[in-house]
């Protein structure tokens, strides 16, 4: 009886989570340009549209480029910071850890508005590269948390053995730390990449009028006329996110990673 109830409960939650996506997937295979469900006819042409229609293709390209670059920059900021707090005792530098966590903890509109005033004041407002920096700062929390966890799981005696045998800091870093920390770098990058791909408000506030990322494009399409391409892009995004998180889970310890992510957020 209890098992049955539990099944039912999980099924209902599953339906709640999946229902909008199922409807969107259904809409995306409509034959004509209409948002009907169940779909009338079957066609995958709306998926082709993402790559053949220059507007959607450019938006996709802009989003992927932005996500790839900003996630890399976020890791580049987080890695030395996490390494430093693992290697050194310097209490006042904890302030930078807090600064790294803050943008993600506050409501996003605040970080977005801060960056908007900053880029407007410095005169760079609207330049595409400002979005890369803005996203890197906004998402630096994710690699910072995964990397801090990664460093804390390194057995210090390994490093000690290496330095007793004459390895300097640099050699230790390249031959011991990097191989051990690599999975955490990858998952930190993956989290930042996926979230940047989906981010709307920071991108909109900083480069919304000059660069159209996919979320911005979808929102504009929502306002100025529906097309099933919106649905096919959505399905593509869900598939990409699920695939990336699936890979992270495959190569890493997802329950452990998430345990750290949320307790750090508190």
């Amino acid at each position: 009886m209890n098992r049955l109830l539990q099944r039912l409960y999980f099924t209902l939650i599953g339906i709640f989570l999946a229902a909008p996506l199922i409807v969107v997937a259904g809409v995306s295979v409509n034959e004509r340009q209409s948002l009907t469900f169940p779909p009338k006819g079957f066609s995958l042409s709306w998926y082709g549209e993402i790559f053949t229609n220059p507007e959607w293709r450019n938006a996709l390209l802009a989003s992927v480029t932005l996500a790839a670059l900003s996630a890399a920059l976020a890791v580049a900021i987080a890695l030395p910071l996490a390494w430093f707090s693992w290697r050194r005792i310097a209490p006042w530098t904890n302030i930078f850890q807090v600064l790294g966590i803050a943008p993600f903890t506050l409501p996003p509109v605040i970080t977005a508005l801060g960056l908007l005033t900053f880029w407007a004041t410095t005169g760079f407002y609207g330049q595409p590269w400002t979005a890369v920096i803005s996203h890197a700062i906004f998402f630096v929390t994710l690699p910072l948390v995964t990397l801090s966890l990664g460093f804390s799981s390194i057995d210090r005696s390994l490093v000690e053995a290496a330095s007793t045998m004459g390895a300097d800091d640099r050699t230790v870093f390249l031959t011991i730390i990097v191989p051990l920390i690599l999975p955490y770098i990858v998952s930190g990058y993956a989290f930042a990449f996926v979230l940047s791909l989906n981010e709307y408000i920071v991108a909109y506030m900083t480069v919304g009028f000059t660069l159209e990322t996919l979320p911005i494009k979808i929102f504009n399409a929502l306002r100025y006329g529906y097309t099933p391409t919106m649905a096919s892009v959505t399905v593509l995004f869900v598939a990409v996110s699920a695939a990336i998180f699936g890979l992270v889970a495959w190569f890493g310890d997802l329950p452990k990673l998430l345990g750290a992510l949320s307790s750090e957020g508190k």
Partner: protein
Amino acid sequence: MKREPPRTLADYGPLLFPAAMLTVFFVVPSGTMIAVSFFQRQQGGFYTPAFVWSNYERFLSVFFGNVLGFSLMLAIAVAICCVVLALPFTYLLARMSRRAQVLWLVGLLSVLSLSEVIIGFAWSTLFSRTAGITNLLVAIGLMDSPKALYPGFSAVLTGMVYQAFPYTVLVLFPALVRLDPTLTEAARTLGSSPLRAFFNVVIPALRNTIVATLIMVFIFALGSYLLPQILGRPQHWTLSVLITDQAIYQSNMPFAAAMAVFLVLVTLALVTLTLFLGRKGEAA
């Protein structure tokens, strides 16, 4: 290698790039925003340096009071719905096999990372007249004709609960994994039903976690910006929407900045409260 204090200036080297980036692109922008919130607005979208309280004085209007009240009420409703739904879910999830856990977690993360735009679009489709759930109800004969279920308050609430539910599960997950299983076992041995054990043992043991989670989800929901616009009417707009509206469309940066500063203060107060509760929870 032991942790040691930096001896030379060169030891601080690795800190240089992260510290510079975070200072220039986070601390300075925040400072700029605070400064702008005291600036004098000029006609035509410009503003001049000044030190005036007029942007903050606008908070005292009835309109602003309504928006603030609605934002807080909505965020509280979302937080309560999410925790009520997610607590038993996460409790059971934490006791499932590792394989099932990973599968659910991947799914939850995928939903969590979904753009607000996409969530809004998906639910507006589900609530629409042409493709929505009402068609299903018509098909099985429960309704006469399909109708649109949005825009409206329940649509906004549903969308936001959908958005925040995976987040709630992920916040609760670590605490529930760590929860001592002997607690419920003891309750069961003493003859209580699983449901009773859950309500009389698990929930009191997690009281601080639950309050902390409520606050975290509340902050998360405060940040929701697109869902009230896509699924609601203008009277369902939240503070986040109003801030963007003032900044981008009304070109009133000083007022937008003042509202943002206010939102930061509310959030910070709540984060401090969460940290305080967390510490108290550990001490207990």
